[in-house]
C-alpha cells in the first residue's frame, strides 16, 4: 500500500463510514462526529469496520483495543490505526 498522510487516511475512513453505515443523505459526518455513541454504527457493525481497517492498512488490531471508545470517531480510529502501522 502506498504511504498515506494523516488526512488521506482520515478521508479514506470517513468515506468508507459514510458509504457503508449512513443511510440518511442529510446527515453530515466529520472527523469528530461520534459514530458508536451516537448510534450511527452499532457494536455488531463495528466488526466490519475493524475488518475494513485491517484489510486496508494491512494491520492487526488486538480485540482488547477495538473498543467502542477507540472507534467513536474518525480521528480516534486513525489514531488507533497509526499505533499498528509499521
Amino acid at each position, binding site marked *: 500500500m502506498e504511504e498515506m498522510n494523516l488526512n488521506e487516511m482520515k478521508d479514506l475512513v470517513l468515506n468508507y463510514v459514510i458509504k457503508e453505515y449512513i443511510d440518511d443523505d*442529510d*446527515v453530515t459526518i466529520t472527523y469528530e462526529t461520534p459514530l*458508536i455513541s*451516537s448510534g450511527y*454504527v452499532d457494536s455488531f457493525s463495528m*466488526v466490519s469496520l475493524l*475488518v475494513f481497517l485491517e*484489510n486496508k492498512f494491512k494491520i492487526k488490531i488486538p480485540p482488547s483495543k477495538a473498543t*467502542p471508545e477507540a472507534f467513536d470517531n474518525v480521528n480516534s480510529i486513525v489514531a488507533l490505526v497509526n499505533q499498528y502501522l509499521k
Partner: protein
Amino acid sequence: MISMPDHFTYDELSRDFSWSIAEKELEYKPGDRINIGWYCSDRICLKGHAEKTALHYEGFGGVEKKYTFNDIRLAGNTIGTFLRGLGINDGDRVCLFMDRIPELYLSFLGILKIGAIVQPLFSAFGDESLFVRLENAQTRAVITQKKHLPKVRKIRSQLPHLEYVIIVDGVKASDLEKGEVLFSLEKSEPVENLDIHPTTAESPSVLHYTSGTTGQPKGVKHVHYSLISQYLTTKWVLDLRNEDIYWCTADPGWVTGTSYGIIGPWSLGITQCVLDSGFSAQAWYKFIEKHRVTVWYSAPTAIRSLMKAGDEIVKSFDLSSLRHLASVGEPLNSEAVIWSERVFGKPFLDTFWQTETGSIMITNFPGMKVKPGSMGKTFPGIRGTVLDPVTYAPISEHGRAGLIAFQPGWPAMMRTYWNNPEKYRDKFVNGWYLSGDRASIDNEGYYWFIGRDDDVINTGGHLVSPFEVESALLEHPAVGESAVTSKPDEINMEVVKAFITLKPGFAQSPDLELDIMNFIRKKLSPLAMPQAVEFMEKLPKTRSGKIMRRVLHAKEWGEEIGDISTLEND
C-alpha cells in the same frame, strides 16, 4: 395506587397463586373489555396520576422530551384518530419501524386503542428482513422515520397490502411518493376523546417476529389479555413501586422492549426513561446518574460490555439511586452477577422468557437467595419442568439436562404463529410448550441454563436463524454454498460465523470476506452479519447431500463431533 409484595416471600406468593390477583388489581373481570392502550394511559389518568411523568426521553446529543400520563393518553388518541382517518381498522397490522423515539412508544398505544395490531420491527433490519416480515403479516401501514424510508421504498412495490407509509419526521411534502403520508404529533391538534375499540381478552394486540432453525421468521401473535401477566411480573419481579424511575434498555423492536419497556411499567403508572443512542459505558452511567434511575432492566451483553469498560469508570458517577437490577435475553454468567454486586452493591437478577411466552417465566425473585449463574425459579403460577429429549417425560432427577417446557395457560402465552398453525402445533408435546432451550433443575428448584436445543443462534440476546443467513448468503454473486453456525464470543455469548464455498471464477480474499459481511448486514441486519467468514473447498455433507451444520458447530466450540457415519467421503 400499587400495593407491593415487599413483605411476601416467593413461597408465600406461590401458595394459592391465581392470575385473578392481577385481574382484581386491574379491576378487570372475565368477559370485560380489556385494551392495553387504555390501561397504560387513560386508566392511570383516571386514577389521579395524569400529571405524573410517564416518559422521559433522551436522544443523542442531549435532546430531551418529557411526557406525562395525560400527554401519552392524548398522543395515543391523536395517533389512533389519524390512523382511523386513513381507514385503518381493528385487526389491521401496523408496523412500527423506528428508532427509540417518543413516537414509537406513543404510536404503540394509539394502534392498540383502535384495535389494530402493532407489529414492531427492529429499525436496524435491512430491506430483506423487513420485506419478509411485512409480507408475512400483510401489513397495511408502516410508521417510520425519514432515515429508514429508503429501505421501505426499496421493497414497497413488492408489498401489495402495504397501503400507507407514515413518516413522522423530516420529509418535505414535495418529496413524498404515492402512498406516503406525513404525520407530526407536535403539529397535530391533541384529541381529547377517542372511542377505544372494544377489544376483549382474546383480541390480538402485538405481533412480534422471531427466528427459528428452518423457514422464514414467525409472527408471534399476542392478545390484550397478556396484560395480566405482564402487569404482575413487572410488579413482582422488577419490583416497580410508585416512586421508581425505571430504565429498560431493550428496543421495542424486540419483545422485552414492549412487554417490559411499555406495557408493564405504564400499566403500573411508573415513570420510565428511554435513551436513544449508541452504547457507551460513560453514556449509560451518566444517564443513570442524571435521571436517578432506581430500577434497571438490561441484558447480559450490555452488562459484559460494562464489565469490559472496567471498575474505575463506575466510580466517576453517582449510581446510588439504583435499587434493583434485572437481566434478560441470554444466560447471565455468574461472573457478571458477582461483578454487579461488587460495583453496584446489588446483583443483576436473571430472568428467562421468550417472545412466545410474552412474560417472565423463570426468575430470580426479589428477596430470594441468588445462585449466581442460575436462571432462578418459575414465576408463581407457572408450571415448568425439563423434559427428557427422547420420551418427553418430565425429568425428576436433580441436575439432569432436559428441555425446558411449560404447561400452557398463563395470560401472555402466544396464541399462534401468524399464518403458520403447523409450526405453532409443533411447539407442543404431551401438553407441554417446548421452549427450545435446555437446562437442568437443582434440588431447590433453581433452573440452570445449558443451551439451545436447535441451531438458532442467540447473539447478544437476539435470535438469528442460520437458515435465513444461509439463504441470504446464496444471493451474493460469489457464494456457491453456505453453512452458518455460531462461534463463541466474550461479549455477545455467541456470534454468527459463515462457512462458504465459492463459485468458479471467484477467489478468496480479505476484501471478499468484508464484502460478504456487509452484504448480509445490509440485507438482514447487523446482528445477522457473520463476524467471520471461512472459505472452504467443500462443506461437510451427509451422503444424501445435506449440510452437516453440527460438524462445523462442534469445530467452533471445541466439542465432540459425534456420529459422523453419514458424512460424505471423497
